């Protein structure tokens, strides 16, 4: 390997450089397409995402913000993806329960002057417990679960109501659960906690 040819190789390469086409891209003049798998800005897929919030949970950089807003009877869950905090790791995409709900696009040009311009957010309707008012899950998530477990889900009244909703069956579950919660209330739209209470309420009484 150690052949003494001082400077000759360099000169050769230099001359090659001088007379060959520059290696430089034409980038700002011609647009650039990153490879297919490029991990660019994550974006929600409005049709697929069910709003389960797993992406929020797994995100190592906490770049996804999940806000549950409950205003008398209409509750929404907003998932906001902050590119400014994202580290483009792709975990959200990988762990998305629907696989497609959030996708890392190939968008790389996400420079901004004001952070608000880049936020990508998605809104979901939330189902809240008729008894205590806490969040049960998003409507779509419930439907997704139902689809996933099929008739296994019929045991779960909340899922069932969703099914009815999907089937456009009119239900009268709207009525508020009275306190104290009773066993009959477990068929209403209640959160797991309330359901548990409902389940054990009279059993305990029976003792």
């Amino acid at each position: 390997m150690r052949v003494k040819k001082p400077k000759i190789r360099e000169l050769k390469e230099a001359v090659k450089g001088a007379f060959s086409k520059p290696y430089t891209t034409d980038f700002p003049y011609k647009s650039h397409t990153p490879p297919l798998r490029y991990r660019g800005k994550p974006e929600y897929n409005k049709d697929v995402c069910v709003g389960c919030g797993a992406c929020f949970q797994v995100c190592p950089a906490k770049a996804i913000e999940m806000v549950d807003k409950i205003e008398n009877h209409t509750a929404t869950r907003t998932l906001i993806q902050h590119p400014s905090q994202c580290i483009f790791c792709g975990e959200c995409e990988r762990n998305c329960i629907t696989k497609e709900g959030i996708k890392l696009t190939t968008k790389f040009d996400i420079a901004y002057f004001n952070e608000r311009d880049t936020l990508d957010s998605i809104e979901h309707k939330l189902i809240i417990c008729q008894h205590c008012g806490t969040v049960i899950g998003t409507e779509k998530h419930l439907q997704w679960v139902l689809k996933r477990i099929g008739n296994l889900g019929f045991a779960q009244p909340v899922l069932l109501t969703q099914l009815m909703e999907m089937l456009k069956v009119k239900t009268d579950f709207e009525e508020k659960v009275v306190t104290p919660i009773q066993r009959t209330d477990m068929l209403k739209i209640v959160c797991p906690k309330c359901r548990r209470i409902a389940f054990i309420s009279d059993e305990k009484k029976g003792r």
Partner: protein
Amino acid sequence: MKKLFIDYDRFLNVPDDGIRCSYKMHPENNGIISLREEIAFLFACRRCEDYPCVNSCPTGALKREEGIIKRSNVICISCKTCSLACPFGTILQELIPRIVSRCDVCIGRLKEGEQPLCVKTCTNGALGYIEEEEIKDRTDIYTIGDHIIVRVFNWLHTYGIKK
């Protein structure tokens, strides 16, 4: 020997972050959550035949071992699907966090007469640090391991099914 007493069902009314924990090896650790999760799967779960929870779990984090559901805390992504799927309200959403906590029942860390921090900070008596005798007469008492006593409405017990 004093043991940690947990009244599981009372927890249902305890506000989420009311209880603190002195297991400080991790930031934001609250050991009681992991205990509750374990208790839930042990006692509150109804052992459904075809476990909607396991079937619904998109990652396979839930698994049934010897009849008891186990959640892998490494795999679970805390998507709450199982919670939605469970017909009996066993899996509470706060019990399946992404980052789990740990409780060592404060073994070896308590001074004479001192109570664990969780007991001290629990306001509605869901927790206690007591001698086993004190609660002998109460119903629904179960022991887990050497250090924990649980009072939970146990469906299995009520209906005569042994663990």
